[in-house]
């Protein structure tokens, strides 16, 4: 019997073999940055940013946001159409239509230069 044990010479490690954990961390960070970039782009371009009242500058009004619109009843999309269901819808719709039209939102002219005292006449002086 041959008792000789053959020992392979130790293979020399490459730079990336020696630093594979660093490489792993760098790749993970890069992926995270890309995903955050995509999320932020979607947040800004989708219009979600305009609805986010938790942003700085909106905290003074965020408590006045309607968080629960349970008063706005869902009309059932199934069932027969008869005088009762028509009357039910009419009552719901008239109530909410009146509520929707009650406020003439974004009226007035608060950005008028005269109101802000930055009128064009003053600029030309």
């Amino acid at each position, binding site marked *: 019997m041959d008792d000789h044990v053959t020992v392979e010479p130790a293979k020399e490690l490459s730079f990336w073999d020696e630093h594979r954990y660093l490489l792993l961390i760098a790749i993970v960070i890069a992926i995270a940055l890309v995903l955050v970039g995509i999320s932020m782009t979607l947040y800004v371009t989708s219009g979600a940013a305009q609805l986010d009242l938790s942003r700085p500058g909106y905290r003074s009004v965020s408590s006045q946001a309607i968080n629960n619109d349970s008063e706005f009843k869902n009309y059932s*999309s199934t069932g*027969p159409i008869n005088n009762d269901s*028509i009357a039910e819808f009419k009552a719901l719709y008239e109530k909410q239509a009146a509520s929707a039209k009650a406020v003439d939102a974004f009226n007035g002219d608060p950005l008028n230069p005269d109101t*802000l005292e930055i009128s064009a006449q003053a600029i030309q002086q």
Partner: protein
Amino acid sequence: MNRIKSNCVSAKNTLNRLHASDALLRVNRGQIYESMSTKLMTRFNDRAQSNHLDTKALVGATTSYGTALATFRTNYQSYEEQLSNALRIDCTKEPAAFYDAVASARSKRSQVHDDVTVLHRHIDDYTAAFAQFASDHKDQGASN
């Protein structure tokens, strides 16, 4: 120029308050406008369609309302971005750029108000289409 510089702080405070109050208005009114479509119009149309009734006018009014709502969303976003741009400008250093940015925001805000008026008109259009539907259906005996 000097007037803008001297009123810079006061103008920016006013813009900041307007920025916040308009955002609140957008959230609260937007919620009602969305619900008009998703909780009432679309649901009634679906129910009428599932009963094989003629919903052409109702669907047409709902589609027009949806288009107007999308325009409102887009125009509000554009207005808010413009107002944010104006707020980022240092009006003590760039008074002319500040003035132009505010003027542009003013025009965009006016457009948003027009969009709201159009939405209200479409709500009335749906009311009229529904009244016609109810009347037609009543004529048919409302037996479904």
